[in-house]
């Protein structure tokens, strides 16, 4: 027994044991892999399970959560206190005050509710609760118009509409003729109610029903002023190349008004759903809430519409009369949709949701992230899908745009505040409103432009070049106002016969700027 036997022959039991154990382990692993593959396949096959029936009365998001738990989980996270360098309300439960951050705004909004209380914005989940406590509604009388965008109000609008005699019932789809009639009638009704009364009709911040059809989850728009506003935009002639369905509708017979719920593509709806609220509008007591889009979406097109708009008493449109100067000025809301419309991103077909609700993958399921927030907090999914550059580089690019924009905006605000102070001084020195009419126009124009950009949430990023253009115009109008005022002073100080060539109102040359009275 000197020759070595083969190992298997000498200890067959050991080897058979090893093979058996190995095969058992390998089988277990294969079964685990199979389970994993089956799970992924199942995820891909069915992305939602219908647990409850949803209809046009299903306002409660927790109900929708039973069918769409992934979207709901993210949706709830909008309550988190997220913030970036320029946006979001900061890490504390008490939001950062824009008025404390930038005291110029107190002068600019003097005499208007925004001078009382104006904070940086928090996430969607806070929209209703934050509005209920702001000094703008507790210290000033407001109408129910505020709720057009600060609450989930589809149901409230329709119920009020039905009470006011609109046809049909709640069983009909919102996008049906009757549904639309109820919605528009409801807007009339709620806009006339005092804020506190209208407030009792709503319980939720923006909810699923506001953007989704309960029957098939398709995107839809439900805010009546958007539906009227976008139809007015379509029937005008301002070019809107970033909204191809409008251009297409214009080429048709125009027998029916443009209806985004029928005409717009899904990609357009991914912006329009947001554009229902993130826009400029009039929500004061002197007219029913409307979007001023008849002449287009640019700052001067909206201004032109306001300038020719007459209230029912025949007076030209204005938001309030500035008490320091006497000028009838405009207040911008938050024109994100309008600003985005002027951007290269919009022109390239990039929607709001592409950056603010980018797709996320969970297993084999792709869902859009309902935790709506700044793309700066989610660069890999928001930006890198198209821009294949390192995250740090992209972030630096955005912050570079925002920093430059912020510096220019501060200059524009400074110029306006200087104009307001100079006019205030001129009023005290005896110049009356009639004499200052031309200067008031400059204040109105300058103020409208800088506010349009300040109220817009992106610190210039949504359309950097457009934002800079608007701020440049604002500075120019403030300085033109100075020049006009200066000419008035010269006229007043001279003999009754003004003859000097310098009184022929130059438009903001550097020579005339040097004579601007200092604050």
């Amino acid at each position, binding site marked *: 027994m000197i020759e070595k036997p083969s190992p298997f022959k000498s200890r067959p039991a050991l080897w058979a044991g090893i093979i058996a154990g190995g095969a058992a382990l390998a*089988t277990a692993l294969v079964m685990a892999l199979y389970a994993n593959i089956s799970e992924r396949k199942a995820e891909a096959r069915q992305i939602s399970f219908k647990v409850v029936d949803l209809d046009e009365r299903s306002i409660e998001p927790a109900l929708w959560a039973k069918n769409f738990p992934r979207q709901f989980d993210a949706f709830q996270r909008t309550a988190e206190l997220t913030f970036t360098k320029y946006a979001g309300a900061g890490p504390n439960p008490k939001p950062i005050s824009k008025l404390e951050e930038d005291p110029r705004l107190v002068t600019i909004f003097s005499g208007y509710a925004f001078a009382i209380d104006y904070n940086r914005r928090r996430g969607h989940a806070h929209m209703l609760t934050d509005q209920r406590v702001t000094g703008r509604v507790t210290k000033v009388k407001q109408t129910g118009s505020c709720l057009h965008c600060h609450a989930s109000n589809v149901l409230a609008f329709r119920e009020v509409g039905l009470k006011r005699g609109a046809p049909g019932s709640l069983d009909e789809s919102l996008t049906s003729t009757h549904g639309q009639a109820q919605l528009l009638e409801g807007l009339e009704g709620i806009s006339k109610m005092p804020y506190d009364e209208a407030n009792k009709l709503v319980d939720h911040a923006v909810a699923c029903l506001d953007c989704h059809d309960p029957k098939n989850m398709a995107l839809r728009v439900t805010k009546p002023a958007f539906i009227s506003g976008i139809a007015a935009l379509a029937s005008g002639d301002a070019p809107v190349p970033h909204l191809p369905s409008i251009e297409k509708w214009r080429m048709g017979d125009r027998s029916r008004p443009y209806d985004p719920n029928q005409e717009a593509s899904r990609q357009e709806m991914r912006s329009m759903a947001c554009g229902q609220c993130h826009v400029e509008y009039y929500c004061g007591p002197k007219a029913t809430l409307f979007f001023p889009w008849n002449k287009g979406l640019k700052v001067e097109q909206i201004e032109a519409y306001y300038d020719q708009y007459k209230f029912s008493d025949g007076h030209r449109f204005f938001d309030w009369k500035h008490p320091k100067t006497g000028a009838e000025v405009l207040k911008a809301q938050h024109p994100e949709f309008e600003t985005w419309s002027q951007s290269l991103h919009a022109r390239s*077909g990039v929607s709001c949701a592409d950056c603010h609700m980018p797709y996320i*993958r969970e297993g*084999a399921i792709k869902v859009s992230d309902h935790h709506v927030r700044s793309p700066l907090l989610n660069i890999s999914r928001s930006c890198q899908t198209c821009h*294949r550059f390192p995250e740090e580089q992209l972030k630096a690019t955005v912050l570079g745009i925002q920093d430059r924009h912020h510096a220019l905006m501060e200059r524009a605000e400074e110029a306006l505040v200087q104009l307001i102070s100079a006019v205030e001084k001129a009023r005290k020195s005896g110049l009356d409103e009639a004499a200052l009419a031309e200067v008031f126009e400059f204040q109105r124009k300058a103020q409208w432009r800088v506010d349009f950009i300040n109220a817009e949430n992106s610190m210039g990023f949504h359309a950097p070049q457009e934002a800079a253009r608007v701020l440049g115009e604002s500075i120019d109008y403030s300085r033109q106002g100075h020049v006009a005022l200066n000419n008035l002073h010269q006229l007043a100080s001279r003999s009754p016969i003004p003859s000097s060539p310098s009184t022929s109102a130059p438009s903001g040359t550097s020579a005339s700027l040097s004579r601007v009275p200092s604050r």
Partner: protein
Amino acid sequence: MRTAVSTQRAAGLLIVLASLLVGAFVGTGGFTFAAAKGASYLSDDPAACVNCHIMRDHYDGWRQGSHHAHATCNDCHLPQENVLHKFYVKASNGYRHSKAFTLQNFAEPIRIVPSNSKVLEGNCLRCHAEMTDAITAHGTLGVAMTPAGSVDLHGCVRCHVDVGHGPRR
């Protein structure tokens, strides 16, 4: 002697058990392979690339891209000069993809790795070399976009970004 006989019987039983278990492994393994459409990965059919859903956007994009009529996934993403190299790249990508998708531990958006970028560039030139000779004389790839060299897209597709996967939006 009694112990030797019982040892032998135990060994015999173990061998039967081992055979059964090996059989079970082959059976379940084969079943899993079939269920996961394993054989499809040996083909050139683009549909195989969307078996696992990660590539759905890329596949949908390709269907709208200008190369749709002329090149499939493998025409661009696998080396074509010989079968051995082709299957080596296919196997190494397959291993990495299946590991990533099973463990769900990869970063998104997914990016082409430098070695695959070279393969891709080679395939651009495989068809378009004559026309691009003057441009590519000094090389096309090579400028790393990150200091670590982990992203490298300075090839043809840096500019011709939508020929393969269609317009971005």
